């Protein structure tokens, strides 16, 4: 073990634990998922970085959104994200979740993913190479160290705005709010409708 990190380990063991055991949801959206099998298997071996895919979102804390997000997929993404235990980190992968990418004028693809769920980091490119995933993971480590990967905290604090945005897109959602939304939320919804 690196001796310099010893103090960190003793001071904040939980944070260090989160850093080096990222469990990714095996959730496929769009074309980016084609990069994930080579990066988790022998060729690039994501386990060197402590990233391993898991079966269900309830065991995961890393969410890679790997490509364009259609309206129907967004519903599944929100439900998956809300099921993950905290702390959870989400990473937009490829240029489509960033600003729509080549689907910027599509009738059925959402353009900015961070309007609906919080995103901790972006990997730009179309498509990013598997190496870019590892660069992103090491960046995520620094973000976790500096407590800047706080998407799940933002989601809790600003849940009413996220929920309002989701409802503006979908109309009425089939599931109840994850966190209390308060009176202001209803005002916002009325104003928009």
């Amino acid at each position, binding site marked *: 073990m690196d001796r310099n990190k010893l103090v960190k380990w003793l001071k904040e063991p939980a944070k260090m634990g989160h850093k080096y055991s990222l469990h990714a949801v095996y959730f496929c959206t769009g074309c980016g998922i084609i990069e994930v099998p080579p990066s988790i298997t022998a060729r690039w071996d994501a386990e060197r970085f402590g990233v391993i895919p898991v079966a269900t979102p309830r065991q995961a804390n890393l969410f890679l959104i790997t490509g364009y997000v259609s*309206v129907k997929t967004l519903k599944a993404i929100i439900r998956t994200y809300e099921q993950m235990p905290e702390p959870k980190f989400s990473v937009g992968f490829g240029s489509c979740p960033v600003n729509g990418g080549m689907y910027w004028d*599509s*009738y*059925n693809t959402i*353009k900015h993913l961070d309007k609906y769920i919080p995103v901790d980091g972006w990997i730009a490119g179309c498509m990013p190479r598997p190496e870019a995933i590892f660069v992103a993971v090491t960046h995520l480590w620094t973000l976790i160290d500096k407590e800047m990967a706080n998407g799940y905290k933002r989601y809790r604090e*600003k849940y009413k705005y996220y929920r309002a*945005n989701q409802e*503006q897109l*979908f109309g009425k959602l089939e599931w109840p709010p994850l966190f209390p939304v308060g009176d202001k939320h209803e005002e916002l919804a009325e104003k928009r409708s």
Partner: protein
Amino acid sequence: MKNSLKKDLESVFKGIQITVPEKDRMIITAKKEEAQSILRFLKDNGYEHLGLVSCVDWIEEKEFELVYILSAYMQEDNEYTEKEKSNIIVKTRIPRDNPRFHTVIPIFQSSEPYERELHELYGIDFEGHPRQIPLFLERDYTIPPFRKDFDTRKYVEEVFDKIPFIEDKR
């Protein structure tokens, strides 16, 4: 083989146009009343696989063009014959302001999801279809989104761009 089929078709159905643009491909342009019986005729002649039902929006001519692509299954222990390599494309036009057509499910069962898709994306009403419910889309659109007069950029501005960023809420 092709020539005999062409002759058969021309003798049975009057007023159809048959073109052979290249080898192993035949395009039949028919009126909408005849299209069903042509499909039935082709199925009886061994073209049993409906590969695709598609639609083209001819907005200037105010018509939709339905395209059915048929091919034949390979018989067991055979080399590919000329018939099995070939595709037959049946095209028919329906008016754009009242897009109605009879379903071909009684002839080709596999057309069910294709017709549902066309109903959703072009707004074509297939009479006799057992369940014309949405297939892919989640939202309601003012006009079906694959029609040429659907303005996607305007739609994006009206729907997706109107949703505010969370950062703007501070």
